[in-house]
């Protein structure tokens, strides 16, 4: 009886809510809704939902923004399939602006609305090489993977990758990186070690396009990583599942060193979940990877020339870039620092945000993740 009653009550509430939302929609019929699709971690969700969207709506009445969020990009493959299918059929996919790692893949497949300074004027301030690398994606923020270390136990962090590898072997159980299929910070360490044995030309080829013929050259780096199994934290070569777990292991003192995303680390420090004695630094030869995050406007979006374009242009404005730098995200800007609020950009000391070493094209990155899983953990 009681369950029936509960069902009836909740059905009535749902009905009432449905009625009220449809009524409010009718009242604001003139408002154009922009559908934003985000495939990322929760810090990016907060950036959009709590910071960018309210500021955009305040600056641009007449637009509403609806954010769809996919945690860790679990549905990237399905979303790509949906957009590809929509493009093939020439139909609106119901998404106007995408923020996610698969944007450049969509761009390479010719599924994005090509951004130019003519339609998005603020692109004039964006680095041309970064813009070109997006293959139709619009760079709007940057981040880098950095080496985080516990200053209580590590007064001077390693400066180069070789020094880091030596440190790991001299301090067993005190370093970790997460499984590359679970998050970009661990992936970056894997790619950096693999890149150590590659020529500059090979590295560039793997960033620019699918290059299966070069993958055999990863063997040396993967062997180096396998040999680290007995020196990293966890028995028999086990690694944290994702970015957040590496941060947790650092904060609780389980490890003294690990690779982390610059923005996630800065947010954790600000939120108080990361103790102040944990610091970050970049290594060299090669550096840990980083790069721009791209927005994509699907070529078939009905709003491509309207709301989507307005929102993308606004995100590149100094006002929005200041929010990206100083808000909860602590991201890197894509426009010159001179145009931004100097008090917010002071935290970038020591990190060269204009010269970030790019990650591989996603097809090569997928292969590297797979090769890592079959050759490194538990071997």
């Amino acid at each position, binding site marked *: 009886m009681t369950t029936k009653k509960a069902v009836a009550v909740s059905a009535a509430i749902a009905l009432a809510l449905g009625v009220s939302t449809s009524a409010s929609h009718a009242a604001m019929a003139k408002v154009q809704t922009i559908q934003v699709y985000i495939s990322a971690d929760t810090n990016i969700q907060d950036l959009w939902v709590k910071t960018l969207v309210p500021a955009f709506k305040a600056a641009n009445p007449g637009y509403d923004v609806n954010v769809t969020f996919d945690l860790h990009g679990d549905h990237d493959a399905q979303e790509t399939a949906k957009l*590809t299918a929509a493009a093939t059929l020439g139909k609106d996919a119901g998404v106007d602006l995408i923020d996610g790692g698969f944007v450049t893949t969509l761009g390479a497949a010719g599924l994005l609305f090509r951004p130019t300074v003519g339609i998005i004027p603020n692109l004039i301030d964006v680095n041309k090489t970064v813009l070109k690398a997006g293959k139709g994606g619009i760079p709007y923020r940057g981040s880098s993977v950095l080496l985080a270390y516990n200053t209580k136990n590590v007064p001077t962090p390693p400066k180069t990758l070789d020094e880091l590898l030596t440190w790991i072997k001299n301090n067993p159980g005190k370093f970790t990186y997460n499984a590359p*299929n679970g998050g970009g910070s661990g992936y970056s360490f894997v790619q950096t070690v693999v890149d150590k044995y590659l020529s500059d030309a090979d590295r560039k080829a793997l960033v620019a396009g699918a290059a299966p013929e070069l993958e055999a050259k990863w063997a040396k780096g993967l062997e180096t990583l396998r040999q680290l199994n007995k020196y990293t934290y966890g028995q028999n070569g*086990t690694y944290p599942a994702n970015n957040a777990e590496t941060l947790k292991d650092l904060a609780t003192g*389980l490890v003294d060193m690990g690779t982390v995303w610059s923005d996630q680390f800065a947010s954790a420090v600000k939120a108080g979940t990361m103790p102040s004695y944990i610091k970050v630094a970049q290594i060299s030869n090669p550096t840990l990877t980083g790069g721009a995050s791209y927005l994509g406007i699907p070529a078939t979006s009905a709003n491509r020339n309207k709301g989507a374009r307005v929102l993308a242009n606004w995100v590149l404005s100094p006002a929005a870039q200041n929010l990206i730098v100083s808000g909860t995200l602590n991201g890197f800007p894509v426009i010159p620092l001179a145009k931004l609020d100097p008090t917010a950009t002071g935290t970038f000391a020591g990190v060269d945000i204009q010269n970030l070493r790019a990650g591989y094209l996603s097809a090569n990155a*997928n292969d590297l993740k797979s090769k890592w899983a079959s050759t490194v953990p538990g071997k």
Partner: protein
Amino acid sequence: MRSLLSKTGKEGSLANNGSALSLLGFALSLPPFLLVLGFVGIPILIGFTFSLGFTRGPNRVISIIGQQIHPKTHWWGTLAAYSDVFHDSRFVGDLVLTLAVTAISTVLVILIALAIALHQRLVGGRTASVLATLSIVPLFVPVVISAWAIHTFYGGDGFMRSFFANIGINFPTLTSTSTAIVIGSVWTSLPFSILMISSGVQAVPDALIESAKDCGASTLKVISTVVVPLAQTPIIIAGSFTAIGIMGSFTIPLFLGPNQPTMLGVEISNFFGAYNRPQQSLVMAFIVFLAASGIAVLYIWSNVKSAKESGRI
């Protein structure tokens, strides 16, 4: 579905003008059957053809996006994706881990559930009801929460290690081991089995237990010759449901298991998402499907048996 069909059979035999009734019964059973066929059967068929290399029609989009796709080479397809999986160094370890975790966890779940059910039936009292009630609690905790709770409990800085460190014992870190997957699987599967088995054990008539005792049977004898055989059907149902659930589990092995080898549920997701190899992930899915079918046969057999005993068929 089964009960609907059997009911029509029974009524059809009772009435002389049974053909009209059985037609009605058939029509009544059609909607769920068509639903299963449309939304489960057809996607399985499409998935199966894709695993064989049929890359056109409904499989076209995924074939454009996926990596290491093998298009068919014969009229019936190709086994190249199957060969990929069987030659992958990860697969054997994954399969062995999946089957071992499933077998060990299921046996543990049934033993614990049986112990609680028997205690409640034969001893009873306040402790028994408290124990039975407490054991249902995990049913109301979402799996992702319990997985994370177990992770922090047995982790490197978890409760167990901290507690034992205080008395000078170095308790092992259990997270990222197959032991942790078994602990997590047992924890999450227990409530359903307890509900199922204790209701089966409760249904054994007092008269039978008492007459066995009157004949001088020991408690152990009562359990092994009266209670357990009479509760066999619910025990088998609980066992097969638990085994199928654990075999296809994802959250528990993802949070608690090692990176490699991992259970097939996690590996399928890795292949589909992180490595972008949809064809190979489907091949693994069909292997899990086959293994689960074996368990399902046991379930159907026990259902048919109990239906025969009660005279329904």
